[in-house]
C-alpha cells in the first residue's frame, strides 16, 4: 500500500514539470507584454525597457524558465505585477476558500449521486429510473454558469433567500454556511448527474453478477445485498470515473468562484489572466495542477482501499 502511494507520488513529478513548462510557454504566447502592463499607459519606452530588464524579460526564454524553476524550488513564486503582493501570500489566502467550496460541493453531491444511481439501477426501467436519467443527462449538458445564474436570479435575487456574493465567514458559522450554500449547490449540482449515471451503470453491472446471486442465496436481506455486494463493488468503477471527472470539477470551481465572487484560487486565476498578471497566473496554474494531482492520488489510494486485487498487485 505504502509502495503504491510512493510510486504514484514519483510519477507525479514529471507531470508537475510538464505543467510548469506548459504554463510557462502558454503565458509567453499571450499577446500582452507584462512590462507594458506594469509600466502603465503613460510610460515612455525607456521606462518599459527598464522594467523589462528588471523583470528579467529580456533574457532568452530557456533562461527565464530555468530562473523561474530555481526561484520556485526556493518557494519563491514571484510578486504580482499588478499590486506587488507576493504570489505565495495571495495563494495562501485563496486556497482555503477553494478547498471549502470543493468539500461543500462534494459532501452532498457524491452521496446523492450514489443514492440516485443505485436506486435507479435497482428499479431499472421504472419511472424513477427514467427521471434520474433525464436529470443526469440535463446535469451533464447544462453548463455550470447557467445553473449558477439561475440560482442567483431566483434564490438569491428574486426571493432573497440566500446571499450570492463572496464568502460570509468560516464555514462553521451560520453566515458562512449561508454564503457557501449557493456556490456549493451550483458546483455540486453539475456533479450529481454524472455520478448518478456512472453509479447506475456500475450497479446494474454488478447486480447481475454471480456473487450477488450467492448473496441472495445466503438469505441476506435485499438491503444488505444491494449495499454490501452491489454498491460496494460498483464503487470501484465509480471512483475511477470520479477521478476522470476531476478536471471538470476544477474547471467548474473556476467558473463558480467567478460568478459568485468566491475568494478562491479559481477567481484569482481568472483575474490574473485577464489583467496579464503573469506571476500570479503561473502561481494559480501551479496550485490548480497540484490540486489535480493530489485528488488523483486520493482517488488512486481509494481505489486500492476498495479493491483488494489492486492492493496485492
Amino acid at each position: 500500500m505504502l509502495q503504491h502511494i510512493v510510486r504514484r507520488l514519483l510519477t507525479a513529478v514529471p507531470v508537475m514539470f510538464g505543467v510548469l513548462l506548459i504554463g510557462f510557454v502558454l503565458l509567453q504566447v499571450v499577446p500582452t507584454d507584462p512590462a507594458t502592463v506594469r509600466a502603465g499607459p503613460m510610460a515612455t519606452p525607456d521606462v518599459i525597457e527598464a522594467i523589462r530588464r528588471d523583470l528579467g524579460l529580456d533574457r532568452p526564454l530557456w533562461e527565464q524558465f530555468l530562473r523561474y524553476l530555481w526561484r520556485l524550488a526556493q518557494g519563491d513564486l514571484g510578486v504580482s505585477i499588478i499590486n506587488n503582493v507576493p504570489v505565495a501570500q495571495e495563494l495562501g489566502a485563496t486556497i482555503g476558500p477553494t478547498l471549502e467550496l470543493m468539500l461543500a460541493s462534494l459532501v452532498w453531491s457524491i452521496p446523492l449521486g450514489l443514492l440516485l444511481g443505485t436506486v435507479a439501477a435497482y428499479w431499472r426501467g421504472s419511472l424513477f429510473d427514467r427521471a434520474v436519467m433525464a436529470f443526469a443527462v440535463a446535469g451533464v449538458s447544462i453548463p455550470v454558469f447557467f445553473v449558477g445564474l439561475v440560482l442567483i436570479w431566483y434564490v438569491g435575487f428574486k426571493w432573497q433567500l440566500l446571499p450570492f456574493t463572496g464568502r460570509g465567514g468560516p464555514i462553521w458559522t451560520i453566515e458562512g454556511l449561508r454564503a457557501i450554500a449557493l456556490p456549493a449547490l451550483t458546483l455540486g449540482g453539475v456533479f450529481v448527474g454524472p455520478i448518478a449515471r456512472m453509479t447506475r451503470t456500475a450497479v446494474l453491472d454488478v447486480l447481475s453478477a454471480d456473487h450477488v446471486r450467492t448473496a441472495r442465496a445466503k438469505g441476506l436481506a435485499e438491503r444488505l445485498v444491494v449495499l454490501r455486494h452491489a454498491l460496494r463493488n460498483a464503487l470501484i468503477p465509480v471512483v475511477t470515473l470520479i477521478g476522470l471527472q476531476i478536471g471538470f470539477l476544477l474547471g467548474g470551481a473556476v467558473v463558480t468562484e467567478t460568478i459568485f465572487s468566491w475568494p478562491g484560487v479559481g477567481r484569482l486565476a481568472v483575474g490574473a489572466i485577464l489583467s496579464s498578471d503573469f506571476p500570479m497566473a503561473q502561481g494559480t496554474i501551479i496550485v490548480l495542477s497540484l490540486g489535480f494531482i493530489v485528488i488523483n492520488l486520493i482517488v488512486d489510494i481509494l481505489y486500492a482501499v476498495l479493491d483488494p486485487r489492486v492492493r496485492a498487485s
Partner: protein
Amino acid sequence: MSEAPLLDIRDIRTVFRTSAGEVPAVDGVSLSVAPGRTLGIVGESGCGKSVLSLSVMRLVPRPGRIASGQVLFQGRDLLALPEGEMRSVRGGAIGMIFQEPMTSLNPVHPVGWQIEEAVLAHRDVSRADARGIAIEALRRVRIPAPERRVEEYPHQLSGGMRQRVMIAMALACQPKLLIADEPTTALDVTIQAQILDLLRALQAETGMAIVLITHDLGVVAEMADEVAVMYAGKVVERGPAAAVFGDAQHPYTLGLFGSIPRLDDESDRLLAIEGTVPPPFNLPAGCRFNPRCAFADARCRETLPPLAPVGPNHIAACLRAPVEAIAA
C-alpha cells in the same frame, strides 16, 4: 421412496416474459428428494435445470417468474411463504452452491467475512462467534490453516479452494438440503473428484439431502441415488440411478449415454445427438425431442407424451417405450 420427501416439487412452471410472450423455461416439473438422499438432475445446457433450482430458492431473475406449482419443503409450500420467511430458508434450511467458484464469491470481501455474513443472517451469535463458526466451516471442507484463510480474498485462492469456500458457506448453517448447480463443471478433473468426495463425506456426516444439477453423467453416476433427465423444460425420465443407468427408456437418455466416450470402444467416433435443444419460444409440436429422435414416428409429432411407468419407481415420457420393443 417410502420415506416422506424432504423436498417435493409439484408441477412447477417457470416462465420468462419476452417480446414473443411468456415462454416456459421449466414446464410442469415434479420431483422429490428424501432426507439424506441425492437426486441428480441431468440435461444439456438450456434444458431448464438451473432455472428449476433457482425456482426452488425463489431466486429466478427478472423477467422470469414462477407461474404455477408448489415447492413443498418439510411440508411447507415455499412459494406461498412471505419473503422474510423465505429468506430464512435460503442459506438456512437450504444451502446452494453454483457453477462458477471464480465469480460466485465477492472479490472485495475476505472469504471468512462472507461465511460470517451467512452465519449472522441466520443465527443469533456475536461477530466473534460467527468468526469461530466460519473457521470451523472451512476446517470441515478440509481447507488447511483455516485461521489464516479466513482473512484471504477470493483471488488469493485456487478454483478448487474457492469451491470449498462456497460449500463451507452453504453448509455453515447446517442446511437440510444442499442444491449444487454444476458444482464441478468449472474445475479440472482431479479437483472435481476431490469436491465430489468432499460432498459425499459431508453428506454422510450431516445427513443432508443433495440436489445435484449437472450435464455430466459421470458425476451423476458417482453421486446420485435418484436421477431425473430433463429436456426442453420437462422431465423426460426419472427413476433410481441403477434403473436409469441400467435400463434407460427414453431415447434422449439413451442418446446422452451414447455420447459418453468409452475406453473399451474401438470406434473412433462418438455418438452425438444431432441438433440442439429447441429454445423455449420455439418448441416443436408433440414430443419435444421428436425432431432429434431416431425412433420418432407420426404419433410423436402430434402427442406430447406423459410420464408413464416403465419399471419399478421408474417413469419415462416416451410413446415408443419400452425401447426394447422398437428394437425388436
